[in-house]
């Protein structure tokens, strides 16, 4: 921990296991078990997050990025479930452990921030009480102490007049304040891993930046790891060091953010970058990716991106390209990755 006081300093954290990543997702498949063949929405996703690392998962709606995150948090909406694979936190198997033990991790070890601050807060509970709930449950604090901690957390997230605001109900606060409440709630037990599901998507751009800075500062102060799911490449660029790009339930490319942005090695990543405006080069033409992502139950044979891909060759539609190392620290699932050698910026 660091100089900044968090609720966690009072609680005993599990010691960090050495030699293993903080979070290890291995061959994770998520989907719906129906009577016939299960529908696999997320397929064989693997990635590691080391202590203090900030990882962004980017993809469009339906790419499975949010479900991947929810699978890690154990919050999959029925009837979606983990079909196969493993999720390990600090060396412990999250999927195999008893529900009670897993819940005990939610808050002090792993915390989650949701997309919609409008709906993610309980409308009939004072926000201070909602923040205090975790510390009361996990840190064994009294109502009074937890309430004080909640106000302290609100102050840390930059909420003005926190003592008064703690008594407010969510509908009395602006979207930005509510998202700060969500963040205060998530960090109140001093988690080591913060899972963010598009935390800034519902916010105004000016507020977005404030919230991102806040998240970044909190993570830096406490050495918290971050898994940040978003569809917004610019947001990943601002917050994260590592990047995984998801398409149709697969990770199609991963690597350091800087390297990936400079020279994407998967046509989809490249397409994403070229379809987003770049304020440093306002004269650059935006190139949309043609077509739509495939339906989950009806994915094409071979590379799922092949029908939309400008680099497609005959063998692309025959087999699914494996996620393979294309350069040191760079993984891409593309047979034609070598042809993407252009440096974008």
């Amino acid at each position: 921990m660091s100089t900044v006081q968090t609720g966690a300093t009072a609680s005993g954290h599990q010691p960090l296991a050495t030699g293993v990543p903080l979070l290890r997702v291995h061959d994770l498949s998520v989907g719906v078990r129906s009577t016939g063949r299960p529908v696999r929405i997320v397929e064989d996703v693997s990635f590691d997050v080391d202590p203090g690392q900030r990882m962004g998962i980017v993809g469009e709606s339906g790419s499975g990025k949010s479900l991947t995150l929810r699978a890690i948090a154990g919050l999959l909406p029925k009837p979606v479930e983990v079909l196969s694979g493993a999720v390990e936190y600090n060396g412990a198997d999250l999927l195999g452990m008893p529900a009670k033990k897993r819940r005990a991790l939610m808050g002090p070890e792993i915390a989650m921030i949701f997309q919609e601050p409008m709906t993610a807060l309980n409308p009939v509970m004072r926000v201070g009480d909602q923040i205090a709930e975790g510390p009361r449950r996990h840190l064994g604090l009294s109502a009074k102490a937890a309430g004080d901690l909640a106000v302290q957390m609100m102050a840390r997230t930059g909420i003005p007049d926190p003592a008064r605001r703690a008594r407010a109900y969510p509908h009395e606060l602006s979207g930005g304040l509510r998202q700060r409440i969500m963040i205060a709630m998530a960090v109140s037990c001093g988690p080591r891993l913060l899972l963010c599901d598009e935390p800034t998507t519902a916010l105004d751009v000016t507020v977005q930046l404030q919230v991102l800075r806040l998240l970044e500062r909190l993570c830096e102060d406490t050495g918290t790891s971050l898994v940040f799911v978003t569809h917004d490449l610019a947001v990943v660029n601002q917050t994260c060091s590592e990047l995984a790009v998801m398409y149709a339930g697969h990770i199609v490319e991963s690597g350091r953010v800087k390297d990936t942005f400079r020279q994407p090695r998967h046509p989809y990543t490249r397409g994403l970058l070229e379809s987003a405006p770049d304020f440093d080069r306002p004269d650059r033409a935006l190139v949309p990716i043609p077509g739509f992502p495939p339906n989950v139950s009806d994915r094409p044979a071979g590379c799922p991106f092949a029908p939309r891909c400008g680099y497609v060759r005959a063998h692309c539609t025959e087999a699914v390209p494996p996620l393979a190392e294309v350069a040191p620290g760079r993984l891409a699932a593309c047979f034609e990755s070598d042809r993407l050698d252009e440096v974008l910026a």
Partner: protein
Amino acid sequence: MLDRFRFVPARLLQSVPVVFGVTLLVFFMVHLLPGNPALTILGQSATPERVAALNTQLGLDEPLWDQYFLFLERLLSGDLGTSLTYQAPVSGLVLDAIPITLSLLAFALVLSLVISVPLAALAASAPGRLPDMVVRVFTLLGQGMPQFWVGIMLILLLGVKARAFPVGGYGMTAAEHPYYLFLPALTMAIAMCPTTIRSLRASTINVLGSDYVGTARSKGAAGISLFRGHVLRNAAIPTVSIIGVNLGYLVGGSLVIEKVFAIPGLGSLMINAIFTRDFPTIQAVALFVALFVIVVGILTDVVYTAIDPRVDLSSKERA
């Protein structure tokens, strides 16, 4: 905080014309009843002369409007008139009966909540599974059975066969009252439960799928603590209004139930008064029932406002 309850005085004021309308309706509907109180009082010995004399004595030969204004005038001074049957002030009769009926209603309400909340939670926790099916069948049965029949069945099974509960009456002491009121309250609760369970089940399923329940789970909440802390209050919001409406119907139902269980409440008073054409008593009970429904309506809004901080009926009324 209290600002949000400013609508209460306004609502009370609004109910004055309603009550006035009720007096009008009640008075004239009572007098539309065929039959004549004098005839009932005199019974076999009635001769046209004696009936006419008694009518004059009771003021029943006055023009109907004059009788109405007299009734209003007395009402405003708190005088509900004299019971034609008992020759006693109606206010005394009604005041004796009100606590009995109110405690019966309160008991029924509590019982219905005690039954509904766990069943709704059980059903909502696994929609479409066996417990849900069982609960749904139960609500369907509950809706299909007439109240008086349920009452009679309960008397037969729990009163006569099992001898677990008295079959009727109100008991002598305060300790006996709940014991005597249990079966009638249960009967009324069974009538109330189906709609409450259905509403609560639906809203609980809704709330369980909401984002904020996901947030609560991400804080490690589960099971009862999740239900109590985050689900119940949110799920109760739509159900409160349904319970309010149901309570209004329930007063009507209590008239029959009191008769079935021989409870000396407003219902028994009312039914006897109707049979004997005891106009002042009928008017008084009907008036009280109307007042009760109005008050329940206001209370429903108060509870609604209390559990949902987003509701502000006061500001809407100003607009």
